[in-house]
């Protein structure tokens, strides 16, 4: 609420309320980003240990030691949980959403700044709980990031006690945090847009954040209920998921995937949003079919609620239900194909500048196409009988997730870094970072499809225990080598990030000559964002418009002859 009476520049708050318990959306965004990048290090470390074990089973992983099978299970569980809930969500939704929404719609802050702060601290608490779960007796959760009961419902099945309970608590807190965030995103955009900022003048990333927030808020409820039930099974001895007490193990799978599938689009959409923004700016062209993209993603959002059982074709689901879900699943390629085609059409007759953000955005798109297409294989019910729970699925979801979380996320970080921190990142290092990441990423995950097609199942600590998998050893070693190189390549990013933070070239207001409102204020923007309230005259992508001689036309620049396009 903007009952702050201070003017934007007079910032007399003390250190604690400015940097730690801040209600400023920009500070909160940076807090999310920092915490998520810290988690990314842990997520990467778990990936390293997983890969080491798969290539050299039962040897000592350098820097860690011997990985026992139950530790391996804990590692994959933590890897999946960390990457999806503590890296992807906070970077793509919380960090970029918080940072960009108020700036892009021309507001001074979120609608509920204190709620916003609360949601970060709830997330912080969730992080602390998850970290704590590493150190309790019995170790952290080890039932996979999907936590299927009965395995997850009784201590005797895994030997994990409080680790599993804390995992559930951490997830519940995380969901609460993102629900609060979602309320804020939606209310802010609905009520606090600058004059002239109609819904169809919003940058696409704002639309994507909103659609993602709605999808999240409508799908997560049943899983919250499900998590409460699982926790009750573990602590109070109820039998929701335990057949010996009349319960139903498959219930959890339905609740989990009713959320789980929409969730992957919750992650995808903001990532696509970043790609759209960046591609438009660096190709100096309007996004092709702006409105139709919005409609396509909303349609995909609807469809995402009726595809969940494609994770359960062989779970014991009534076989007659498989084909309906298979049909909806494969049809969902239509809206996404539209978005992909539209992005490619945007590049037609454009004027492309390959700055680092653009490289990552294009990389994200090209990788996403691959990952989306392998989704079609999984989506075919009869084929998924074979593919389910093999590395083909693992390869599929790394292609999609890595595409949006890291390629998309890096594109966003390189692109908005000057705005966030007032300094440019180093271009040369950025380009090297891109090419190494792109090459090693594909080197890790293309062979993973082959490993999967040969029948290697997921979540096994030692493929050498299986006669029919022994011939895959060289391929697994290759994947691991590439994964280690992929991880090492990220050091370039870390160096670039911290070096630029301190030493980077000072950034102008609008280094990329972009149109959206965040570029019209200082880099970094002052508290409360805008010195004077922006007035919006047109849509966000008026690049190379015939109305001016420059190839860009900011949303807030009045033109004498303005018949405000779109």
């Amino acid at each position, binding site marked *: 609420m903007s009952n702050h009476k201070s003017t934007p520049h007079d910032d007399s708050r003390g250190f604690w309320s400015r940097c730690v318990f801040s209600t400023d959306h920009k500070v909160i965004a940076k807090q999310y980003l920092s915490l998520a990048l810290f988690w990314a290090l842990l997520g990467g470390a778990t990936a390293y240990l997983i890969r080491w074990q798969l290539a050299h089973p039962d040897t000592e992983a350098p820097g860690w030691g011997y990985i026992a099978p139950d530790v391996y299970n804990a590692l994959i569980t933590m890897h999946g949980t960390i990457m999806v809930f503590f890296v992807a969500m906070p970077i793509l939704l919380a960090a970029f959403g918080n940072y960009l929404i108020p700036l892009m719609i021309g507001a001074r802050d979120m609608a509920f700044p204190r709620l916003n702060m609360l949601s970060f601290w709830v997330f912080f608490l969730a992080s602390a709980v998850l970290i704590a779960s590493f150190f309790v007796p019995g170790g952290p959760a080890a039932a996979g990031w999907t936590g299927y009961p*009965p395995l997850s419902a009784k201590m005797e099945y895994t030997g994990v006690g409080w680790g599993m309970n804390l995992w559930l608590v951490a997830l519940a807190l995380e969901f609460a945090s993102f629900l609060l965030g979602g309320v804020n995103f939606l209310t802010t955009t609905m009520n606090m847009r600058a004059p002239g900022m109609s819904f169809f003048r919003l940058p696409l990333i704002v639309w994507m954040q909103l659609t993602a927030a709605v999808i999240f808020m409508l799908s997560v409820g049943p899983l919250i209920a499900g998590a409460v039930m699982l926790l009750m099974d573990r602590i109070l001895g109820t039998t929701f998921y335990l057949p010996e007490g009349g319960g139903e193990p498959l219930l959890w799978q339905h609740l989990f995937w009713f959320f789980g599938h929409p969730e992957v689009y919750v992650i995808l959409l903001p990532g696509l949003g970043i790609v759209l923004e960046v591609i438009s700016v660096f190709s100096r062209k309007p996004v092709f079919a702006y409105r139709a993209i919005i409609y396509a993603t909303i349609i995909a959002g609807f469809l995402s609620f009726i595809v969940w059982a494609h994770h359960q074709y062989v779970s014991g689901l009534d076989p007659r239900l*498989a*084909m309906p879900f298979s049909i909806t699943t494969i049809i969902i390629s239509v809206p996404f194909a539209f978005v992909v085609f539209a992005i490619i059409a945007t590049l037609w007759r454009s004027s492309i500048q390959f700055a680092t953000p653009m490289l990552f955005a294009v990389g994200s798109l090209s990788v996403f196409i691959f990952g989306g297409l392998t989704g079609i294989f999984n989506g075919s019910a009869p084929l998924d009988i074979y593919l389910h729970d093999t590395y083909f699925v693992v390869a599929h979801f790394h292609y999609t997730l890595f595409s949006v979380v890291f390629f998309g996320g890096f594109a966003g970080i390189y692109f908005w870094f000057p705005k966030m921190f007032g300094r440019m990142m180093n271009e040369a290092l950025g380009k090297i970072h891109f090419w190494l990441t792109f090459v090693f990423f594909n080197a890790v995950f293309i062979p993973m499809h082959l490993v999967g097609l040969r029948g290697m199942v997921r979540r096994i600590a030692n493929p050498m225990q299986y006669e029919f998998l022994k011939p895959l050893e060289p391929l697994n070693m290759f994947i691991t080598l590439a994964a280690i190189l992929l991880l090492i390549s990220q050091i370039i990013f870390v160096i670039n990030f911290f070096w630029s933070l301190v030493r980077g070239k000072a950034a102008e207001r609008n280094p990329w000559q972009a149109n959206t409102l965040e570029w019209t204020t200082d880099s970094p923007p002052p508290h409360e964002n805008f010195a004077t309230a922006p007035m919006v005259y047109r849509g966000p992508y008026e690049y190379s418009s015939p109305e001016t001689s420059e190839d860009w036309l900011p949303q807030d620049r009045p033109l004498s002859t303005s018949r405000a396009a779109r």
Partner: protein
Amino acid sequence: MSNWFPENVSTFGGDVDAIFYFIYYITAFWFVLTEGVLLYFLLRYRRRPGRRAAYVTGDSLNQLAVLLIPLAIVFVLDLWIDFRGAEVWAKIKGQAPPSDIVVRAVGKQFNWEFTYPGPDGEFGTADDLQMNNSLHVPVNKVVHVTLTSQDVIHSFFLPHLRLKQDAVPGREIRVWFEATKPGEYAIPCAELCGFGHSGMNGTLYVHTPENYAAWVKERWTKNGS
């Protein structure tokens, strides 16, 4: 490319593989098309001094049509994939052909426990035969397996037969297969089931009719009855 999969030894495995290649050709086409056009545009429309990007918003219907036509093709291909898939699904998971042999399989941490009804054809009688991790079947006969689990969810996976089905506690799920080639094949557990999940692995022995008869004879004469 033919060695992407393990050798197929079941009657329906070929259909599954065919679906794979069908989708593979469709998606490979789109992959090459989209990535190809993308790459072409990236090279063709690099920034050059003096050239300005075209102002194309893609809002009008005749501009949109450029995308809607390929989109319609995507839609049609999607349906085609589904129609072909539906047949294969019905064949594998629909009405099973009458069984020649019925076996019970129980998943438990961390073994597959197989039970044969014995000569009387009934479970729960004295001539039942129980074995851990070995499943013996004759070639070219329809085998029904009744799956369940004693503790957590396991998954009964026969990679060479393109068959997978979760074994869920509290439920009995019936699957069938007909092996076409004698040999020994793996039965890995495909669902995370605890610290022994890795290594929970049985063996399917597909015998020639003679060998199978010999095996049956040996088993049930040794065990009395």
